[in-house]
């Protein structure tokens, strides 16, 4: 059974490797959005420092949402998803595999890029570390929740916008927890509670979302 998990992760990573441009586009989007904010609100350092956590988190959230289209759509179009529904392992497990692979090429790079962007906003070093930690715990939740939305909108006209309409409201807790963790770190307050709550949310999403996404895939392919 875990062989199937490994095969799915390996396959999706291999596919992303051979379609590197798609991966790079989402990252470029992240960098661009985050860089637009200083241009929009002005270069005042104190202001930038205040808005930095929110801006970086929102940009990361949008970039990760943008990448959701890649998760199932191509496999849906060429019939590979049908084969996954007929696989010898539970569909929930396959969704976990796809989510892991998807996070490795969309969430992980965001997490590694974020500190560089945070320097543009003059965030203190402590806050930088917390930013990375909060993204490390938060972006997997985003991928997991997003997988439900991506699965529900398969093959639907205007599925990109529809996915965001469905998924963004559900992202709110992650956004709140993530930004306030960085805020707290920048303000010199202990961040343990925030990170613990993010972890709890991740565990919850990890237990629940693959199952829901699997049900959504079954509905979409019926």
């Amino acid at each position, binding site marked *: 059974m875990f062989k199937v998990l490994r095969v799915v992760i390996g396959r999706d990573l291999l596919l992303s490797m051979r379609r590197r441009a798609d991966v790079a586009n989402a990252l470029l989007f992240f960098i661009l959005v985050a860089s637009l904010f200083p241009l929009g609100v002005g270069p005042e350092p104190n202001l930038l420092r205040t808005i930095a956590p929110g801006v970086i988190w929102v940009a990361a959230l949008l970039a990760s949402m943008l990448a959701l289209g890649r998760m199932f759509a191509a496999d849906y179009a060429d019939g590979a998803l049908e084969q996954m529904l007929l696989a010898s392992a539970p569909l929930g497990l396959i969704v976990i595999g796809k989510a892991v692979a998807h996070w490795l090429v969309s969430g992980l790079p965001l997490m590694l890029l974020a500190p560089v962007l945070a320097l543009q906003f003059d965030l203190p070093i402590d806050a930088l570390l917390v930013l990375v930690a909060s993204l490390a715990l938060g972006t997997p939740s985003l991928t997991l929740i997003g997988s439900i939305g991506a699965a529900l909108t398969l093959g639907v006209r*205007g599925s990109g916008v529809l996915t965001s309409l*469905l998924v963004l409201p559900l992202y709110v807790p992650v956004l709140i927890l993530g930004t306030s963790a960085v805020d707290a770190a920048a303000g010199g307050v202990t961040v343990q509670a925030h990170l613990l709550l993010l972890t709890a949310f991740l565990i919850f999403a990890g237990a629940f979302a693959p199952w*829901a996404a699997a049900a959504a895939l079954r509905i979409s392919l019926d």
Partner: protein
Amino acid sequence: MSRPSEAAQSPRPSFGGRINWFKYSSPQSFFPLAGAAIPWFAAAAALFCVAGLYVSFFVAPTDQQQGEAYRIIFIHVPAAWMSMFIYLVMAFWAGAGLVFNTRLSGMMASALAPTGALFTFVALWTGALWGKPTWGAWWVWDARLTSELILLFLYFGFIALTAAIDDPRRADRAAALFALVGVINIPIIYFSVQWWNTLHQGASVSLTRAPTMAATMFAGMILMALGFWMYSIAAAFIRVRCIILERERNTEWVAEYMREQR
């Protein structure tokens, strides 16, 4: 082998004992039932609303601190109640539809969504109009208002998803799953916003309760809530009848119903 043309036109009621009535006769048998119930619910709605309006304007006394502005709560609070209650009912029907694969459940869920969205919007609108004179701001990022806003987005998501999928059965089931995901998320969203709110504002602003909860005030709110409730049922029934006719238009019983109508 069956011929599709025949199968589609054969009258449903004559299918015999093997058929699962639970699954097949529901929309058909519910249609006249809902039709008969609508006038009663509509009348009850009108009655409760008139009584509620009377209590809220002529019986409930002026509030010491907020003056007459507080009279907005007689629609604000019932509307907020209804917005959440309708979402729960909708999620209930959605879940029932997914579990039992009944067609009527999905129709009920999609019939409730627009009315739920309406009450959510009313709750937000009246909240803003109440907040301005009371706290001097149209909008505060209070946990309740924010959750209400997210709830509105969830309603919109539900409606958009139903509208975007052409096959009604798939649309119902996809939207049902989304409704259930939403119902699990609403408490999480509420508590996370509340927690975030205390971090940022130190609980200086609280929409939580009106200063004094006199019995007459409570009575007014309950009456209005009952009125809204009855109205929601009536509206949902009218809408579900439309949906049934739209989806079952090619069946024999609809044709028969049309013949009776003239």
